[in-house]
């Protein structure tokens, strides 16, 4: 009986069921943990995602198991994943992001929105190439949105259009967002002249509190009327921003920025990671997605920079084209990269606040792009 029980334990242990695919995925998880902790690649999301990958690929743990019947309990992560599946978590993260974001620089210079639009260029390029590589349109759209450089938007769109690609797209999106300081500078140097990079911009005008309060309301009305499918993202982003700017609900603003977004981030990260089981991650598609994602990022940067150059030319040198690259979103990393590159060319050059305009515009831009893709393929 002792031997039998031991045999029973062994049979039900994960070692018996371990395949080389599992081992590869565990190694992938460890690499992601390494990137998150040591290389500090967007650790707030990549660390939970990586641990989710680890947990999902330890065989027989059944953390993502659906309940076998109504009376039995399913896996822990199955329940937490419902918030991803129903699109709740990305919206709540946007609520927190809205409460953290100062749209002041955008309101002070509304033309930033153009740069935020230009930096969605990579989405289009990646979409075309993905279609050419044989992806279905829904899949191509989900892959292309990596170029929006916005994690929650990418997760939101992918859960609705191509849920089986979710882990690859989420991991690619967050990894490239973390790689912004490596991806963007060479492109910035290649596409701009030193003279352009040296341009100092005039100080932004002061933005009144009233403008800041009206902004989220106006943006919600216009964007949701034009693109109803984008309501969960833009609506929550702007609600969070209204909490922030109204100044009368500091409690709610603080909670949206802290407890709520953190809880949701943990649940979102772990469960998105846990969808990366070997069967649907160790496929050639994953490599294609990683490649397409990089391409999308590069072309988004290119788009933003080229539009920046155009605006520089139109304004006769009042706009430093470097701030265009900040239009990819990835707040506030991309704006900081613009600041650093600007200061390298001209130590007296402080682009940070000027780059924040396109930077936050990029968040709206990717959400709008997601809304359009959702209208077309949803």
């Amino acid at each position: 009986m002792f031997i039998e029980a031991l045999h029973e334990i062994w049979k039900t242990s994960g070692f018996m069921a371990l395949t080389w695919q599992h081992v590869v995925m565990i190694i992938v998880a460890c690499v992601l943990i390494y990137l998150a902790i040591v290389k500090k690649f967007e650790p707030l999301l990549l660390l939970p995602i990586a641990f989710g990958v680890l947990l999902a690929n330890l065989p027989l743990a059944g953390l993502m198991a659906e309940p076998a019947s109504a009376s039995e309990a399913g896996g822990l992560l199955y329940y937490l994943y419902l918030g991803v599946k129903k699109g709740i978590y990305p919206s709540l993260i946007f609520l927190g992001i809205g409460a953290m974001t100062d749209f002041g620089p955008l309101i002070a210079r509304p033309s930033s929105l153009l740069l935020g639009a230009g930096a969605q260029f990579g989405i289009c390029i990646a979409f075309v190439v993905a279609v050419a590589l044989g992806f279905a349109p829904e899949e191509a759209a989900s892959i292309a949105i990596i170029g929006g450089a916005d994690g929650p938007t990418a997760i939101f769109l992918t859960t609705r259009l191509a849920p089986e690609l979710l882990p690859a797209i989420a991991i690619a999106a967050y990894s490239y967002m973390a790689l912004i300081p490596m991806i963007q500078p060479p492109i910035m140097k290649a596409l701009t002249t030193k003279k352009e990079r040296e341009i100092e911009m005039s100080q932004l005008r002061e933005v009144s509190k009233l403008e800041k309060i009206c902004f989220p309301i106006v943006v919600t009305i216009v964007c949701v009327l034009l693109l109803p499918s984008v309501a969960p993202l833009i609506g929550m982003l702007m609600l969070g921003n209204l909490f922030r700017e109204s100044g009368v609900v500091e409690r709610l603003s603080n909670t949206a920025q802290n407890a709520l977004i953190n809880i949701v981030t943990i649940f979102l990260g772990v469960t998105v990671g846990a969808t990366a089981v070997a069967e649907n991650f160790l496929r050639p598609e994953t490599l294609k997605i990683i490649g397409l994602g990089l391409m999308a990022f590069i072309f988004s940067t290119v788009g933003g920079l080229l539009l920046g150059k155009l605006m520089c030319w139109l304004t006769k040198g009042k706009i430093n084209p470097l701030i265009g690259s900040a239009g990819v979103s990835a707040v506030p990393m991309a704006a900081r990269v613009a600041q650093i590159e600007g200061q390298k060319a001209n130590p007296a050059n402080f682009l940070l606040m000027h780059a924040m305009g396109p930077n936050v515009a990029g968040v709206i831009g990717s959400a709008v792009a997601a809304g359009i893709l959702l209208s077309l393929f949803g």
Partner: protein
Amino acid sequence: MTVWEGILVAIFCISMVFFVLIGLSLLIKGFSFILGIFSSQMKQDTTPVPAQSETVLENELSLGILKLKDVDEPTAAMIMAIVSDESGIPLSELCFKSIKLLRQD
């Protein structure tokens, strides 16, 4: 979907993005203009948008906007430094409204 259709969709998508964002930008411009007219009558409760780097800002922060009640400037500065250190918020981002002393007897 053929590549050709894909290109059309892509062009359509990027033009829609531009259309929406340009629309928004014009709307904000218009709104700011209208609000600008109103705000001349209203009490202006404005917050400056810092355009310089943070180090510059730190120097700009004047004690003038602080209401100091029976507290000398060095003490006020020390209090601000303490709060900044404790909370981990850089001084440039902290906003003090008033520092008052309770019974210095």
